[in-house]
């Protein structure tokens, strides 16, 4: 390399000499010199061409030597590899968490080839980056509480897990402000039962009476509040984009292959067996995943051993490609994956007289929630609409009437200071809504032998993602759950039609 540099330097010096000689003619001589002598300009071009030709020669020599990526066939470098061990469909926080934990738990370095397929590298419709970013332990199902506690532990030690050598440490911008749930008379007993479940599972929550609530947060209107549940520790909100990028950076540093493309089809083999009643049951095994390149007809079939469905709001479509749900209605094959996208709005409001630094993530019993955003008097508010009034999911347009009609009155009723506020911005995102019981589905499908699901979290996927990633990696690599037993969150409850509803009042 240094020889080339020396050659270039000498060339430049020679060029400079020639130029300086040419630039010292007598004035008046110039035009005469230029029109008659063509030799000088040719010599100049010759040296410029020489430099270009030498650099082309250097590039050819570099490509010819072993270790270069030149090949005589013109291949698209964006295609995924032809074979992989595990293909993760979906590059949101759940998909990258699964990929990271798979690589973390592989016992031989480089033993697993993991490919993460994400159809939208800009994450314009991904639920991860459009979420409010909160984490809480105030659930009614013990599994959910344990998942949140484990994820909070992960985030506390995030630099131990996701630190890459010579890169900046991860800063999640975690606001330790806690969640505050308010209950009316009718649902106060549910809140008390939930409180004892949460305490037993190890969450640090406290119950507040209306008087204590008013004492602690004087800006709340406690007229119709019977009981409040307040998280003391491990609860708050953080930046989801940072978490996603931290997972992605660490996973890619460990060798996970990222692919930008869309999964359009699966190739599978069918094993037909007969059950006791005499019906035929199809057991499918995925042989390869067809990944279509964006804006192109090119596709690559990726042969794989295991597929993880972490496609979030679009997991139902992916499952439909395998024929889940397209069998006779009263059989196992007829039960579709009950996950569909539901649109939710978040509005950014500015209220200069609003509550200060100690504003928790407040969730009213009417379903309206808000939290502080930054230090400048901005707040983020939203609510879940009624079943009958679900907005259209074909786009991500925001309905501002919803804020005026449903959210603002409740907010102003709960916090009188919010009567004077201004909506500065709003966005919409999809929930991967589990229409069955609004809780996550983690595990294998009984009819597909090698597909694992990690989807359907209906609004609390982000806060459970580190722990769910670990659980799925344990399922795949260890065969069973090791740290947290999430077998109740598997497919069994859907096939037996026994919903495990979250009894939280919202």
């Amino acid at each position, binding site marked *: 390399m240094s020889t080339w540099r020396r050659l270039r330097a000498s060339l430049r010096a020679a060029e400079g000499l020639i130029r300086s000689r040419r630039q010292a003619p007598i004035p008046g001589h110039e035009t005469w010199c230029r029109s008659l002598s063509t030799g000088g300009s040719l010599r100049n071009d010759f040296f410029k061409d020489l430099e270009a030709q030498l650099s082309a020669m250097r590039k050819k020599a570099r490509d010819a030597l072993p270790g270069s990526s030149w090949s005589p066939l013109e291949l698209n470098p964006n295609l995924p590899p032809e074979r992989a061990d595990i293909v993760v469909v979906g590059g949101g926080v759940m998909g990258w968490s699964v990929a990271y934990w798979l690589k973390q738990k592989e016992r031989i370095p480089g033993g697993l080839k993991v490919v993460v397929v994400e159809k939208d590298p800009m994450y314009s419709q991904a639920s991860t980056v459009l979420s409010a970013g909160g984490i809480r332990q105030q659930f009614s199902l013990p599994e959910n509480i344990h998942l949140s506690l484990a994820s909070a532990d992960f985030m*506390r030690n995030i630099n*131990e897990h996701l*630190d890459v*050598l*010579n890169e*900046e*440490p991860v*800063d999640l*911008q*975690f*606001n*330790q*402000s806690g969640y505050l749930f308010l209950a009316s008379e009718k649902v106060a007993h549910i809140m008390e039962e939930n409180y004892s479940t949460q305490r037993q599972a190890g969450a*640090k929550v406290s119950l507040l009476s209306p008087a204590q609530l008013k004492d*602690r947060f004087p800006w709340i209107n406690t007229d119709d509040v019977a009981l409040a549940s307040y998280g*003391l*520790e*491990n609860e*708050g909100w953080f930046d989801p984009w940072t978490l996603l990028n931290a997972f992605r950076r660490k996973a890619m540093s460990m060798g996970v292959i990222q692919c930008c493309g869309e999964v359009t089809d699966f190739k599978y083999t069918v094993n037909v067996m007969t059950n006791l009643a005499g019906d035929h049951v199809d057991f499918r095994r995925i042989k390869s995943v067809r990944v279509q390149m964006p804006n192109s007809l090119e596709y690559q079939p990726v042969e794989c051993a295991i597929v993880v469905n972490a496609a979030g709001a679009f997991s139902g479509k992916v499952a439909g490609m395998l024929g889940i749900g397209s069998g006779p209605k009263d059989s196992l094959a007829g039960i579709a994956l009950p996950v569909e996208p539901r649109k939710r709005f978040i509005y950014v409001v500015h209220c200069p007289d609003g509550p*200060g*630094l*100690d504003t928790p993530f407040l969730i009213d019993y009417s379903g309206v929630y808000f939290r502080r955003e930054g*230090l400048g008097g901005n707040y983020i508010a939203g609510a879940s609409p009624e079943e009958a009034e679900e907005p259209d999911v074909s786009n991500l347009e925001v309905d501002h009437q919803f804020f005026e009609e449903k959210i603002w009155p409740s907010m102003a009723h709960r916090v009188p200071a919010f009567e004077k506020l201004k909506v500065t911005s709003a966005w919409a995102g999809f929930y991967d809504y589990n229409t069955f019981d609004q809780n996550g589905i983690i595990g294998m499908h009984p009819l597909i032998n090698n597909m694992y699901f990690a989807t359907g979290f209906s609004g609390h996927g982000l806060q459970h993602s580190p722990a769910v990633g670990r659980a799925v990696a344990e399922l795949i690599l260890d065969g069973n759950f090791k740290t947290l037993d999430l077998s109740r969150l598997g497919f069994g409850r859907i096939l037996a039609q026994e919903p495990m509803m979250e009894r939280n009042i919202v």
Partner: protein
Amino acid sequence: MSAPLTFLQRYFRRSALLLVARRPWSSSSQSSLPPFHTRLLLYLTQRFYDVEMLLSWRSKLKRRGVQKKNAYYSYTERFYGSNLATAYFILNLKGGFRYAGQPDWFRADRKGRFSWDFMNHKDTPIEDVDMSYTVFNYTGLNNLEGQQSLRTLSLRGCPEVDDWFLARLHMFQDSLEELDISHCPRITTGGLAALRNLKGLKRLDMSSLPRISTPGLVIILLEEMLPQCKITATGYDHSLREEGGEEEQKNHLQGQR
């Protein structure tokens, strides 16, 4: 054989400080290049897996060392009671404490030696704790969990105290009156919001916290959040600075004209 090893060792020791201190020189100071040995180590890390592995082992071992120092003293607690276990833990970390009702402080000197007189007061709770410049962290709070009458806690200059630690201080919410978290490099605004639970706090010292970006505003919000608390916050530069963005805007407008 030993000469190149000592050569490498010296580089590891100096660069490990930089890695642990975690100041990203690549983004902050573009003009000044990092010192030669750092650049050499980075060059070697990018080319040799062994160097990368050794450096990552170095940081993992350091973290493990800190965790070991903060481990839960269950053995001491089982045989001598929780107060003595807490006292022993504090002295082992080179901190200091004072029993309730006793005027003297028990401290360990710089070499870590301390007198065993603290064993005489078996059932006295601890009132004041000084853990300045120690490696006290979140796991170490397990050892202080039972202390219901802790009045002052000084965490000045502790490199391992972060936002999660501050959130866990809620276990002292009834008794804690004085808290000193100045010069802690890991505390950010999100952690200061966790101090809302300490309703009995009378004095808070939050001077020279490097990771707070808008100290003036944060101090005002904290004063609103904790009305009975007297907040000391020195070491911040509250002067109005012209931002780089404003300069560019001005030039842009002039260019347009």
